[in-house]
């Protein structure tokens, strides 16, 4: 099993990652090796086994929906690469 260049490019596209040609080539080989290793999971019979998404016992994590103190806007904006009128500035969403 080896990932094709097209598969790697598709995954990179989904992950919003710009990769160099060298990286794409590397990942074809490296991701294939890791996925190959993971195929041993297929040998286990897991019919009737529920998936684990959390190791915690079920507990009520809900709380009252009340407003609290938030961090000041200027502090949050101070880490942004581009701001305008107290908001994050981004390039156009559509072409």
């Amino acid at each position, binding site marked *: 099993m080896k990932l094709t260049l097209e598969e790697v490019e598709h995954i990179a596209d989904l992950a919003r990652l710009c990769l160099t040609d060298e990286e794409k080539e590397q990942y074809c080989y490296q991701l294939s090796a*890791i996925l190959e290793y993971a195929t041993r999971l297929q040998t286990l019979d897991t019919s009737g086994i529920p998936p684990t998404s959390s190791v915690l016992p079920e507990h009520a994590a809900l709380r009252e929906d009340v407003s609290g103190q938030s961090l000041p806007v200027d502090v949050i904006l101070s880490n942004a690469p581009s701001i305008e009128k107290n908001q994050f500035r981004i390039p156009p969403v559509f072409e």
Partner: protein
Amino acid sequence: MTKPLIFMTINEMIAGMRSGSFSSRELVAACLDRIQDADPRLHAFITLAPEQALEQADNADAIYAKARKTGQMEIPALLGLPIAVKDLITVAGMRCTCGSKILDNFISPFSATAVQHLLDAGAIVVGKTNTDEFAMGSSTETSAYGPTFNPWDVSRVPGGSSGGSAAAVAARMVPAALGSDTGGSIRQPASFCGVTGIKPTYGRVSRYGLVAYGSSLDTMGVFTHTVEEAAFLFEIMAGYDPRDATTMNVPVPQINLTSDQDIKGLRIGVPKEYFIEGIQAEVGQRVKEAIEVLHSLGAEVVEISLPHTEYALPVYYLIAPAEASANLARYDGVRFGPREEEDQLIKMYRSSRGEGFGPEVKRRIMLGTYALSAGYYDAYYGQAQKVRTLIKRDFEEAFEKVDVIACPVAPSTAFKQGEHTGDPLAMYLEDVFTLPANLAGVPGLAFPVGFDNAHMPVGIQLMGSHFKEDILFKAASAYQHVTGWHKEIPSIS
């Protein structure tokens, strides 16, 4: 001649400051001197805050002086104590890079809850320690700021991902440092550097302010020299936090380890799957010797089985990257981090992320995205979550028979710099004995039990059932009362 301040235990440091034998300023300055001397060779720190730390020390000294004058000695438990924090954990007003270029200029507006508990108790953060980029690594070599070197032999890695914190504590730059553990990132570097490290139960210490990697696996803990110190800081850090819905509202045990621990009748399970061919012979021997010491102190030792151990690695390396691929979507050049200017939003995302992330982070994002993608989800991520259930059940069944599981932390002692950097799978295999605890959510405690033939530290790992950290601390404390491995100090060569 009196003991140099940096070689004191935390108890001795606090007692000295309370009595006025020395000041917090002297203690913080001694740590900063040690850092200045040793860090050029070890590179344990990414960011230092010396002026701020000394200023806080002066404040602490003023409180101590006033308390001595009035006789009112009810002062915060850690007042004036210097500590370091892994650069994956936020401290308000301090840079938090996560070992990545993509957060190079990020100043955290808030402190992690566990850090805040320590600050409230009077601790002083002297700096932020090196880490594999976003904690993705087992050697601290994937940091965008360069690797950390092992204080016992600088040609070797300190382990990872919390390698900076482990090296800083081992080299006596600070008496304690915070770390995080998603697949072994506290226990393995503790073992490689010859220090004590606690990975708490999932849900015991708040993850608020711990930058997310694998949210169902991430935990925060601490490195120290002795088990007593680790238990002391753990108690302060732990507890329910409304800001982290995965913390459990259960009482934090008061752990009193000041007197000799009685471990008569403690049932210790030794899992046969952790003593396999291929592990370094001295590692197996030292761990077995340590188990023999616990046996001589009255513990019962029985062989147990955790039959799905061999599947932990493939399960982890599907689940953790899958969670990471979602968690790291937030680094897109909008709210923080450097931006690559492009004429369209999606192009800007791609370029900023392609430029800002290093190779291991990209590899795991790619792997996780693949495991979650249409057509592969059931075969990879879905199946991994089911096998995770089997691994968790292994532990539940084992803890019906025993109180503690004892085993090696890693298959070998610290390996050479560069030894595994070209082969990701070989690097992942380093985590084979630490991943199961994260998948099952159980606590793990690593501490030194001797050296190999190259005089590199060997660690043992004790695992317990959920929220039973106190049993691990008691067993390990009993061991440290009759042995001296935790007192060994590297010459930093």
